[in-house]
Every structure is written in structure tokens, then in C-alpha cells.
């Protein structure tokens, strides 16, 4: 099923501050990823913005607060609104994270890691099955960075990710920056990690740069992509027929030409491995 997904190419996570430059450089961006939450309960102006983007670019909705890993179940109201948005956009796929963000009436406010256990896999699969009752567009799941390592792991992170996507029959949104960040902070080998992942499930990549603070690499989406992440991209794209790659620059936005330079680099990598034109 995943091999039939269209190849979208090289794209950008949409951020409103660069909308003018985006349209003046449209040919350099193949598709856009939008943060779905920005368009839920949206004002009329935000809805017009989304219509404008959708008329000019293929759009992939990227959700951040569905909390697929919540053992207490999903927020049905949020799911309903998300389903309506995805139906409106009719994208080739949409994405969320392997994490939880809500529990016991508390909205944590950020993506929080799950324990690498069978129970967590079951919870994810159960919630994803519920999601599929509302949304029949293919779902891909992203690996997150984490600052807390939860005890009681029954498997490695890579095995956990693999188990989740295989059991739930989802694709994988491999965030190579997150992979690099976790590998640096927790001292593991990225190549071993990649070997353990089901590469036939990898649909899309995310990339960007972070920064160091007090000896910890922070996934801040605020810097240009470092050489180690470019190497990872090269490695993955060489092995896997990835359908699309997104530059996820959120903060410290540079002149747009810097962003398009990174997109061009990603495009060249893809071209050299005949992934996209």
C-alpha cells in the first residue's frame, strides 16, 4: 500500500512569516507540510490561507496533539475536527507522532516519550484503529526526541518503532534530526538503529538543525542542517524509495534563500538516487 503513495519530492514545513517568499519561489518547493492544529477551529482568514496554500501546493497535514499513545484513549472532539480537516485537504497521507501528550486531564504541552513495551504498542494500535474509523487516508508515524528515558523497556527504540508501524500497518515518518539528536544525547549508533527499522515502511523524512545547550543537543528546529544529518539523509535515501522530504525550520528563520539552498541540496541527493526530479 505504501509503495503506491505518490512521490512528492522536496518540501517545506509551512510557517506564516515566509508566505510571501514562498510564493515568490514556488518552483523550488514541491509540497508543504502544515501543522494541523493551526487550522482547527481556525478563523476565516486562516481558512483562506489554507485554501490558498492547498490551491498552489500538495499539502500534508502534520498533527501534533492527537496523543496516539494515550492509554486513556483519544480526545474524540479533537479527532473529529482533525478528520474534517484531512477530509477537506484529501492528502496522499497525513502524519502524527509516536508519543503521548495528554493524560489524567493534563495537557503536557509537548510530545512525551512512551515506554518501549508491548503494552504501549497495544495502546498505539488500539488508538490508531479508532482513528481509522474517522480517517481513511494513510497515516505515517514520526519518531520523536526525548529528554527522559523511561524505565522498564522490553525492546530497543528502533524495535519499538518497527513493531508499532508493522502492527498498525502505518508508514514511518523518519525524522533524521530526531534520530541524530537522540543518538548523540544517549550515545547509540545511528547505523545500528537504521538497520533495525523496517525500511519498506519509511515514507517521508524530516530534517533541520538544532543547537547545543549545557551539553545536550536540543531539537530546536532553529539552525541549518548539520553535516551529520545530511549524511543520514544520504544513507536513507540511497536505500529507501522515500516519497518526500520536509525541511522543518520553525525558529530563527533565515533569509528564504538559505532555506531554498537546503531544499536544493536535498533535491540533489534525491536526484542522485533517482528518487525525484
Amino acid at each position: 500500500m505504501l509503495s503506491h503513495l505518490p512521490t512528492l519530492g522536496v518540501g517545506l514545513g509551512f510557517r506564516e512569516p515566509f508566505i510571501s517568499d514562498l510564493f515568490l519561489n514556488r518552483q523550488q518547493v514541491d509540497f508543504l507540510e502544515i501543522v494541523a492544529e493551526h487550522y482547527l477551529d481556525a478563523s476565516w482568514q486562516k481558512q483562506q490561507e489554507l485554501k490558498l496554500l492547498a490551491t498552489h501546493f500538495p499539502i500534508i497535514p502534520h498533527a501534533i496533539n492527537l496523543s496516539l499513545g494515550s492509554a486513556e484513549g483519544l480526545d474524540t472532539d479533537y479527532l473529529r475536527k482533525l478528520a474534517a480537516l484531512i477530509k477537506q485537504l484529501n492528502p496522499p497521507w497525513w502524519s502524527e507522532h509516536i508519543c503521548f501528550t495528554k493524560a489524567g486531564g493534563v495537557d503536557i504541552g509537548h510530545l512525551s516519550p512512551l515506554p518501549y513495551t508491548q503494552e504501549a504498542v497495544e495502546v498505539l494500535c488500539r488508538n490508531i484503529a479508532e482513528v481509522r474509523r474517522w480517517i481513511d487516508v494513510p497515516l505515517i508515524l514520526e519518531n520523536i526526541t526525548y529528554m527522559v528515558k523511561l524505565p522498564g523497556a522490553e525492546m530497543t527504540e528502533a524495535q519499538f518503532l518497527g513493531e508499532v508501524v508493522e502492527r498498525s500497518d502505518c508508514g514511518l515518518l523518519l525524522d533524521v534530526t530526531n534520530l541524530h539528536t537522540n543518538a548523540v544525547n544517549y550515545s547509540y549508533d545511528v547505523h545500528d538503529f537504521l538497520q533495525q527499522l523496517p525500511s519498506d515502511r519509511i515514507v517521508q523524512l524530516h530534517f533541520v538543525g538544532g543547537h547545543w545547550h549545557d551539553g545536550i543537543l536540543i531539537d530546536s528546529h532553529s539552525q541549518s542542517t548539520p553535516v551529520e544529518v545530511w549524511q543520514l539523509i544520504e544513507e536513507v535515501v540511497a536505500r529507501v524509495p522515500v516519497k518526500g522530504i520536509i525541511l522543518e525550520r520553525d525558529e530563527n528563520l533565515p533569509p528564504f534563500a538559505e532555506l531554498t539552498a537546503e531544499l536544493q541540496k536535498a533535491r540533489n541527493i534525491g536526484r542522485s538516487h533517482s528518487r525525484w526530479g
Partner: protein
Amino acid sequence: MNALLHNPIADMYGPDFLLFYCSVIVITLVTCWRLVQDPTKNHPLPLIPAEPDPYQIAYLRSQETGIANVALFDLIVRGYLQVNEQSISQVPNHPDVSQLEPIEREVFDKLSSSSTAKTSLWLATESIQLYCNAYEEKLQNEQLLYASQWQEWNIKVGLIGAMIIFSLGSYKLLIALGKGRYNVGFLIANGVLSIIFLLWFVSRRSHLSYRGKVYLQQLQATFTRLQHKAKYEMPSVFDYNLLVALFGIEALAGTSYDSYYKAFFPPTFSRTVSRRSNSSDSSCSSSSGCGSSCSSSSCSSSSCGGGCGGCGGS
């Protein structure tokens, strides 16, 4: 003859006829309103061009004056013209004029002597009239301008509507006067006011069609960030031209070309009503994605050097 003098309308009691007449007026006005609806109302908009033409957009917004504005400003940005307080003149050591587009060359040649900003704009507008036809035609083909044949149709509809109101009203007026009834003030007032309103309604026109208005709004929303770029970053010549094309000279206030803005709008002018677009004001926009919890401006604005988690409350 008897039928003309005695029929349901002629014999209708005064107040009843007024009610009937008002109903006819309302129906006529509503019918005319439906008939003069802009035919482009439900048409999809054109795509934002990959390489927008500032002159075409300027014509869309303000016709010849818009194009003249852009050409004039372009010459200033590229060093062919200069602003000295309230006047605009050619730069003595200006670059080679062969690099100019024909429309810019026309404007440049027209401003051979120093003149006030408003006079310069007037002269520039005069000089580029011939070039406007091509832009007008392109925009007409896309149905972004209000076509003259639609206006002719509107006038026809209005005249027919006015005839209906006039005929019915004057017929009853003659009958009433013939019967010695002189309390016809309301009848005359209704008729006259509705005809005036109808003729005003059908003859008012914007140079833009509905499609053109919405398209212009969409262009302005898409490129609104150019206003921020002009104030705080380093826009290119093209960026500046597009800015002036979309938002006029007013958009140059507070930019590096504030003097040009002031040449048209001397400092005594002040705006008291401000409008705010949802997306452009920093008070209400959020750019957070799904990165690390330090991905928001908390890191860059932290007083302890850009980190997150290392300082602040525990």
C-alpha cells in the same frame, strides 16, 4: 378607454395602492439587483503567478496611476531619479538608460526637470497611457476587470426597472389627479426615491469585477509580509516594486524610502484608525511546530543565554 379608467389598479383605494406600489418597487429592485450581479461571482480565482508582474498587479489595483507609481519608484530605487524633500528629479550621474524597460524610459524622459512628487506622478501617468492597454487586455481576458458590456447591461436593466416604477406610478398619479385626489405626496416620493436609488445602484461601478477584487485581496494577503520585509530586512528591487504595486506608496512609510513616502504624504497627515490582519501581527500568531519543547522563542529570548531547562523556575 373605459378599461384604462376603470380597472383594478385605477380603482384601487389609495393606501391599498401604495402598499401594492411599494411591493412592485421592492420586487423590481430585487429583480434588478439579481440581474446586475457580477457574473464572475462564483468563478474560481486565477493562481498566484510564479513570477508576478508588478505592473500588471499595479494596474489591477489602481490602473494607470498604479503603473506610474511603480515605474517612478523603480527609477528611484535603481538610481535614475532622486527625491529631494518634496521634489523628484533626475540623478546627474544616473546609470545607462538603455537598461530601462520602455515604460520606465518613458517616465524617465518625461521627468527631465525637477517637479513636485504629485506633479511627477501626474506626468508619469500621462506618459505611460499607451502601455496600459496591454495590461488592461490581459486582465480583461481573465475577467478581473469590470467589462463595459456588463455595465451596459446593468444600465439597460436599470432603465427597464425605472420604466416599470415610473409607468405604474405616473399612471396612478394621472388617475388620482383626474379624480380630484391631490394627496399624492407618498406616491411621488416613493416613485422618485426608488428610481433615483435604482439608477444610482446600476450605474455605480468599480473598475474591478468581483473576481478581480477577491483576487487582489488574495494577492495582498499572500504578499503582506513584504511590508515587514521592507521595514526590517533587505528587500530586492523586485520586492519593492511588488510592494508598491500591491499596497501603494503608503507601504513605504518607515522603510528606507520613507522620504519618498513623505514627499507624497507630508508629516501632518496621521492615521487614527488602524486595521489589523490576523496573521501579520505578532500578538496573535504562533509559529510553533512539533520540535523540541525548546523550539519556541523561549530559547532565543531567555535571559540566561539561549538555553532551555537550565534556568528559570524549578
